């Protein structure tokens, strides 16, 4: 007779262990266990049969793999935890006796240092593994880099997070491995591709974060501890892989002045390889602070003198670049085109980092005071721009803080288009007439002086437009980056209604709504007609009532917030004034296209048109009514036919389902449910869009 098997000695009962058992087995406290699990990446499991897995009658909730826990038993960290516990006791005793000094000494000298190197190597045997798991690490560290220090988060940690993040950004800038970015309501998403791994992370907007609620910062702190170690090793590897010294030199004083990225100086590794200031090349010469004193002129001259050779140097670099390109041109991958039809077409890789990273290379950017500097700087630099300047208010490290700099080609502005008159005068830039007389200068000279002084101050009068410069809103940068090409800047002109900002990661699946396509392309058969019928019944009645309703809404708003409406009215007036202004500017500008001029027209209707155009459909005149009716009839017929066919299809499906086994039927139903849900969603969106388009047409 076979031996009787004892219960609970094999199978699930043995493979799983509850959390309490695990903690008891490891002989550590629960918080320590938690830390250990976070460090080692051990997570609970769901046993297939909970009842079999738990030996107790009451249902335990959390199960771990026994193997996992066994493996934790050998962890050197466990001993560190125990040491720490012993030390805590000693310190507690010392404090109890009132020996504060002793306690402090104990804490200072005997605190066991926890290193996570071995865990990193263990969890990520290869570098690519580490890159694959970098998403959460980056999101977390970028968040902590933007948090204020509290009792739970020591300032040291925050400084470390900031440093690591900036170092990582520097790597992305140098290798141009940033791919996409997206402005979301949560923050800014970035995606980079390093060694074939897509890394996506989210950085919050620079606001004070809400930290109340049941957020346990000890847990977050543990994660941050692990992630900082991970990122520092990753950074080291990334830097050394491109022949840079890690850690890069960090200029604390520059950082104090808000230089952020520019506080770091990257250096080449070997002596033979000239230590190149990859980032600070240009800005180092211009980095001197602009004095607002009377010698500003002289200084400015000096600076311009300095600039010229630097430009020469850049040209030289360009030449060498060209030469390099000649070599790399042959080095690049050729495009293969099949000579016959029946062959397979092999996919070829997209252009490499260098090509996509050169989007903004020829331009010089200037960021206005109101724009978010850090993301723009990072994005522009990662896509090739070497010269990014900004207002001195935004911190140190700009290519130029002089808004009037001639070399600036693009200025990023994020403020409403206000006429000059609407703005308060800027008193300090204008010297008083008395002074002028005292100086004994002619008026013309004084005007020149004024201009110079303005430029030396680094700030133009708000609202002025430097001719020959392109003014765009920040979204232009993001959209250009995501589409991989320079977009028309006039769509993003200051004050213009922006086209919708779309996520670059959504790949339209079958049956899903795609806002980039026109409505007609994705509507299902019979959908338009059905919609038309629905609307048609109420059309005549609603057309007016809609407007009324809208007016009503407006009135409501007016009642609620009188201020706002008043503001909008004044804006309208402002726009009118703008119109007066624009021609002058256009004359100065010269080179703007006719289209842009048309678009500059601040008419409300025109804006709507513009919107419609952005959405990709044409505005058409209203159709005659008789045609409408015939159409309606046709539509009715068609919808009926479609409905009938659908019904038949559904019946057919039911019949087929009967033939299936239960298991398969369930699977099918699940699939259908998913599809239906997706389709419903798409339909809802299409319906909304239809309504919107219709509303646009009506106006």
């Amino acid at each position, binding site marked *: 007779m076979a031996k009787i098997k004892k219960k609970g000695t094999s199978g699930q009962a043995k493979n799983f262990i509850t959390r309490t058992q695990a903690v008891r087995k490891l002989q550590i406290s629960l918080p320590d266990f938690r830390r250990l699990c976070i460090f080692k990446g051990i997570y609970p499991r769901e046993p297939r049969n909970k009842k079999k897995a738990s030996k107790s009658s009451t249902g335990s909730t959390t199960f771990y793999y026994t193997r996992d826990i066994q493996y934790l038993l050998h962890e050197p960290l466990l001993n560190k935890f125990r040491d720490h516990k012993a030390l805590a006791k000693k310190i507690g005793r010392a404090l109890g006796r009132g020996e504060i000094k002793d306690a402090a000494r104990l804490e200072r000298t005997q605190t066991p240092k926890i290193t996570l190197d071995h865990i990193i190597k263990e969890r990520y045997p290869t570098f690519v593994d580490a890159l694959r798991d970098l998403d959460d690490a980056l999101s977390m560290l970028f968040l902590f880099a933007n948090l204020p220090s509290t009792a739970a988060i020591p300032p040291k940690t925050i400084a470390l997070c900031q440093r690591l993040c900036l170092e990582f950004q520097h790597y992305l800038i140098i290798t141009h491995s940033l791919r996409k970015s997206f402005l979301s309501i949560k923050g800014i998403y970035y995606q980079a591709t390093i060694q074939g791994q897509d890394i996506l992370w989210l950085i919050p907007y620079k606001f004070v974060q809400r930290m109340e609620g049941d957020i346990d910062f000890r847990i977050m702190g543990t994660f941050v501890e692990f992630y900082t170690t991970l990122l520092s090793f990753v950074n080291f590897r990334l830097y050394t892989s491109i022949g840079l010294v890690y850690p890069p030199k960090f200029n604390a004083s520059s950082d104090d002045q808000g230089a952020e990225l520019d506080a770091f100086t990257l250096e080449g590794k070997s002596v033979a390889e000239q230590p190149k200031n990859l980032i600070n090349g240009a800005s180092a010469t211009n980095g001197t602070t602009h004095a607002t004193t009377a010698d500003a002129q002289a200084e400015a001259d000096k600076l311009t003198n300095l600039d010229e050779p630097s430009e020469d140097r850049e040209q030289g670099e360009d030449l060498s670049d060209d030469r390099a390109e000649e070599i790399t041109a042959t080095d690049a991958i050729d495009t293969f085109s099949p000579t016959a039809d029946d062959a397979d077409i*092999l996919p070829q890789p997209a252009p490499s980092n260098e090509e996509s990273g050169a989007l903004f290379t020829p331009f010089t950017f200037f960021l206005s005071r109101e724009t978010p500097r850090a993301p723009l700087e990072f994005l522009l630099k990662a896509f090739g721009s070497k010269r990014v300047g900004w207002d001195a208010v935004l911190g140190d490290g700009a290519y130029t803080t002089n808004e009037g700099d001639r070399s600036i080609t693009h200025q990023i502005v994020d403020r409403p288009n206000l006429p000059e008159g609407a703005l308060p005068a800027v008193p300090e830039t204008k010297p008083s007439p008395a002074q002028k007389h005292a100086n004994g200068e002619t008026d013309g000279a004084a005007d020149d002086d004024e201009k110079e002084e303005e430029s030396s101050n680094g700030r133009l009068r708000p609202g002025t437009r430097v001719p020959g410069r392109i003014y765009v809103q920040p979204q232009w940068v993001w959209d250009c980056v995501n589409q991989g090409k320079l977009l028309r800047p006039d769509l993003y002109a200051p004050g213009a209604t922006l086209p919708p900002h779309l996520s670059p990661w959504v790949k339209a699946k079958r049956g899903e709504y795609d806002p980039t396509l026109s409505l007609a392309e994705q509507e299902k058969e019979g959908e338009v007609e059905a919609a038309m019928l629905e609307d048609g019944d109420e059309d005549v009645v609603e057309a007016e009532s809609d407007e009324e309703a809208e007016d009503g809404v407006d009135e409501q708003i007016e009642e609620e917030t009188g201020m706002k409406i008043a503001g909008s009215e004044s804006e309208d007036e402002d726009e009118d004034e703008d119109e007066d202004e624009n021609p002058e500017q256009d004359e100065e500008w010269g080179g703007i296209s006719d289209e842009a001029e048309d678009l500059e027209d601040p008419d409300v209707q025109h804006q709507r048109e513009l919107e419609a155009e952005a959405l990709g459909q044409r505005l058409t005149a209203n159709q005659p009514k008789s045609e409408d009716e015939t159409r309606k009839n046709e539509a009715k017929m068609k919808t009926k036919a479609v409905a009938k066919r659908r019904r038949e299809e559904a019946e057919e499906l039911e019949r087929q389902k009967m033939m299936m086994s239960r298991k398969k039927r369930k699977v099918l139903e699940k699939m259908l449910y998913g599809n239906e849900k997706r389709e419903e969603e798409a339909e809802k969106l299409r319906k909304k869009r239809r309504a919107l388009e219709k509303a646009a047409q009506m106006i």
Partner: protein
Amino acid sequence: MAPTALGQKRKAVTRDVTEEDATAPGDVFRGDQLDQILSQSEDEDDQESVFSDEEDEEEESKNEADEESEITDEYGDEDTSDLKPNYTVVQDANGNPRYIYKEIDPAYDSEDSDAAEGNNTIGNIPLSFYDSYPHIGYDINGKKVMRPAKGEALDALLDSIEIPKGWTGLTDPATGKPLELSEEELDVLKKITRNEVPEDGYDPYPDMVEYFSSKTEIMPLSAAPEPKRRFVPSKHEAKRVMKIVKAIREGRIQPYRPPPEEDEGDTVIKHYDIWANEEPRADHVMHIPAPKLPPPGYDESYHPPPEYLPSKEEKATWEKEDEEDREKEFLPTDHDALRKVPGYEKFVKERFERCLDLYLAPRVRRSKLDIDPESLLPKLPDPDELRPFPTTCATIFRGHEGRVRSLSIDPTGKWLASGGDDGTVRIWELLSGKQIWSVKVASDEPANVVRWRPNAEAYILAAAAGEDIYFISPISILSPEEEEKSRAILDVGWGYAASSETNGQSKKETPAKWARPGARLEDQGALVRVTVRSTIKVITWHRRGDYLSTVSPQGQSSAVAIHTLSKHLTQLPFRRLKGLAQSAQFHPSKPVFFVATQRAIRSYDLQKQQLVKILQPGARWISSFDVHAGGDNIIVGSYDRRLLWHDLDLSTRPYKTLRYHKKAIRQVQFHHGGLPLFADASDDGSVQIFHGKVVGDLMENATIVPLKVLKGHTVKSELGVLDIDWHPRQPWLVSAGADGTCRLWN
């Protein structure tokens, strides 16, 4: 209580002391006794302080009284009857002498109140019980203790007598006699009532003796002279100090320095390449990596398309719903400018929840039903990862007259051998392009194939011209040892061939003749000539370098021959083939042999001698093929301009068909040195380079990426590039053109 103690002591003495002692002079005796008494008195004091009951006090006082009387008796005894016996002799009734002994004083302590002699023994009962009797009790001998005289008679007496000293007017309950107290006793009583120490001369407040005072004593406590060690330095200490000094000098003991304060985190994290020697580890089956967060959709945009904005009802329902029930954690909102975007207030919370998910949420693998087919496609490698591959022409080898038919790089990668239409075989230095050696193997026929023997230890080149194969060890490039080795390898077969011939094994027609090529060629290094039945077009070596196969398409049954170099033996494995044999290859690791005919490629197991597989590339006329180093993938080039990739595990049909050439493909070749490259040569004068990565994983198909078109050879009489060969290690390629040149591409 000194007197009491004195009395007690003396009594004890009288009892214990023997007669001789008693005779000792009284003075000395007394002095000794005194000493003891002094020492004892303190003890008594202690004892007394413990008892403070009045009863005890009384008892003691009683004892005192008794003892005092005794003392007087005993003194009397001592004084008067020193040698008198303690009995008296009387005559009894019979006239006999009768000794009447004195009553023996029992050796009880005098403190024992029970043993009071002559006392009343009635115990602790009131005396009034005896009021009606003449006696008041019994003594220890049972005699009545008579009531003392009392009453009028006594009164009369009293009147006549003066009140004696110490009269208290109390009756001693024990004796019934009037209690008399002495003066001293009264004093004691008085003191007790005042709560004073009853002892005489006791000073409750003595002057304090300052033992430890500022006063320095002049006199030493002891008169001993000061020892030497007090003023001579200690040798032992000197030794210990020297030990420490030495340790400090040698640096074994560091002077104490407080541990340095830790700076920033920089010192904590040491930077080094943790992945310096990384080795991939297969993922554990049970490990489920944390799922990544999905990328944001359109509705998360700060400025989404207007149709994504929620309508009023949707907004209301969203707000009404419980936070956990919401499908989306945010409400799409539109901001018409970036500056108007507020901070996302749940940011930290969402991050925290993600953290919780990472370490607290059980992970389960779920099979998804509708998978995006695109996600299954292998991701294209980054252009940087595809490098290196040959891009430019580095060297041109000129010298052949007419076409260069074939070329081969030797296994060390130094030399290039080529054979051309002019019937010469030439050897070039690969890097410099200099011709080192050349031999004319045939005058009327082209040297169709040259192939180096794959083993690097010896330099042996197999060259075929017409029906002859020459095994050449080119003397001019070899060192003497290398030449010796090569010669040995080629010559070892002579003996074998001779022995088998003497055995008379085969008189029938041999498939090939092994012979020496003649003095002229032998001088130049061509050591062996094998003649087969028809023109050889292809030579392939087995990886070990002992076997080689030749293919001569016109040869009918002798089209494919396998030669054994070490035995000088030629075998014809196939009696007849279906179609014309085009090429043959050995499997890189298994005993499998591939033979290509015009339409199909067959693979044979050489050990079992049976057909394994037939591949149908679908080409009309196969020109050449090559087996990947793994042995599972084959590329096939065909005269109808196709390049076909076969995955042997996948199917007998090609995995990919590539048609990038305008003219026939002459030669295809894998890189056999570990780089994922392959190339094909075509009659349109171009060589195309492809990236072809084969993963060991069966689940993943090979990745093929077209990389480069190398153009350089000119097309002459419809022929372009005739042969290519890869460098054994570097990403370098050589090509032989119909224009009479060879080119090295790197």
